[in-house]
């Protein structure tokens, strides 16, 4: 011990931390992809939606949205959907299932530090989200001629803020769902109602009643924030700061709920 300097010890600790997180990410990924039906459903849903909607209605134009093509609206829309599905829905359901089946309690009682678990779950979610986003961009580009984001920097920032915020909302959601059976249905209903009201399938007019209503929730803001870096309409900034801020505020609020309410094990009956 004596001939090891403090710097060396700190360095080896850092290496241990990195390899521990990498180790855990590997198994989180394995666990996600080995469940083929779950993985196909999570990743495939957004792809199938984009392909079908793009094929059926993609070429019509939205007069009240700068006359852009509907498929130009759908590509960022389903990118947003994919990110939210990977972080919010998947995370909420998997945390409830893991908590109720006792798997979280086991991880809690293992020497794996909580921070390593959180980082590993976040990286895992990001990987799943990025895979979807890439698939959607490729289908949009080569299937429907939708150009890639013209401001990649803004696009990446939007994705990262979105993943972090919706992941926090996913964790918060998991804390209010009482049991495994309710996890899928409850999360899906909340998610799909918000998606519908936020105009994912049918774009909303800017000041319609529905738009005003859905502006209180993060989903519409996130769809708009993802669209901005594509710059379909001239003179619109790729940085939708206002929308991003509202998404981030929801994320921060969800984080507070998650920190207060998170449990490692099922509630004692």
């Amino acid at each position, binding site marked *: 011990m004596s001939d090891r300097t403090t710097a060396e010890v700190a360095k080896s600790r850092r290496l241990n931390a990195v390899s*521990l997180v990498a*180790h*855990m990410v590997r*198994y989180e990924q*394995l*666990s996600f992809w*080995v*469940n083929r039906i779950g993985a196909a459903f999570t990743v495939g849903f957004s792809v199938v939606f984009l392909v079908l909607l793009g094929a059926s209605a993609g070429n019509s134009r939205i007069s009240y949205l700068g006359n852009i093509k509907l498929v130009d609206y759908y590509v960022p829309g389903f990118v947003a959907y994919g990110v939210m599905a990977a972080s919010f829905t998947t995370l909420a359901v998997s945390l409830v299932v893991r908590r109720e*089946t*006792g*798997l979280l*309690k*086991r991880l*809690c*009682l*293992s*020497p*794996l*530090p909580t921070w390593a678990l959180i980082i590993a779950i976040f990286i895992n979610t990001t990987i799943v989200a990025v895979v979807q986003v890439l698939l959607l961009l490729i289908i949009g580009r080569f299937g429907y001629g939708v150009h890639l984001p013209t401001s990649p920097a803004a696009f990446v920032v939007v994705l990262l803020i979105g993943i972090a915020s919706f992941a926090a909302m996913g964790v918060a959601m998991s804390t209010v769902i009482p049991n495994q059976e309710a996890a899928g249905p409850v999360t899906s209903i909340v998610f799909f109602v918000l998606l519908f009201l936020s105009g994912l399938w049918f774009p909303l007019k800017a000041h319609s009643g529905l738009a005003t209503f859905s502006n209180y929730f993060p989903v519409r803001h996130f769809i708009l924030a993802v669209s901005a870096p594509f710059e379909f309409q001239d003179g619109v900034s790729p940085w939708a700061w206002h929308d991003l801020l509202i998404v981030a505020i929801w994320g921060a609020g969800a984080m507070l709920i998650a920190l207060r309410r998170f449990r*490692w*094990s099922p509630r*004692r009956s």
Partner: protein
Amino acid sequence: MTAVSVKGLRKAFGPVHALDDVSFEVEPGQVFALLGPNGAGKTTAIEILEGFTSRDAGTVQVLGIDPGERDQQRWLRTRLGIVLQELAVEPFFTVRQVLDRNAGFYPSPRPVDEVIELVGLDEKADAKIKTLSGGQQRRLDVGLGIVGNPELLFLDEPTTGLDPAARRTTWDLIRTLSVEGTTVLLSSHYMDEVEALAQNVAVLARGRIVATGPPSSLGGRDHGRVTIRFTLPDDVTPAELPVIPSTLDGATVGIATDDEVAVLARVLNWALEDGVELHGLSVTRTTLEDIYLDLTRTAADEPGSNVQ
């Protein structure tokens, strides 16, 4: 240094006193058992030792560390093996994958192949966990408990729900680990299990320790206690007996005694003189089960004992 030291431990969940002034010690290298019926507080006690549940009062030392102290918890857990009561299955992993994953959490894990062999899952090493039988999953659970090469292993009801053959396999495994020098703290509600495995036992009933010691000496058993049992006819009440019964179950009388010849003589003389028939008369050396039932019943009947 003792492996586990518990003094004056208390824990309440609302009005229920799960643990009430519990004290015991576990020596290194020992197999120690917490014995008690369901709801006696065994799991609560173990979860406090693991640092999963907080305590209301008392001092607890596990491998010289207070498990309630957050900054020591992770380090402590690298030295502990923990097998929980509930089975929890990672549905999509194979046996080897989940062992490999958990081995990565520890500084000096036991080789995964060695663990697989120890718990007897060689043929199932690459099978999905959800395809294992209950007994095999339980053994995998024990495998996950020992993959970190623990100094101290907690086993919460390791054989509950197993068939007799699987129980024996698990017992052999616990003995092997004990011989290797691992300290084991197990909980059980099977008397024969405690008798077969443990050097020391604490009997827990309604959150209190009602007896401690080696299984052979429990409840005065080494004094050669004997139980005399018989059933009285309908027209005879237990009050007419020449000796005071220790237990009464309807008309069935149980008399526990150290001096069975004298007591038996009094009972038989009385029965012959009064012409009373004693149905199903038996004389048995007290089993650990008798003592256990006796100890836990006394605690349950005590006035002012815990709220249910």
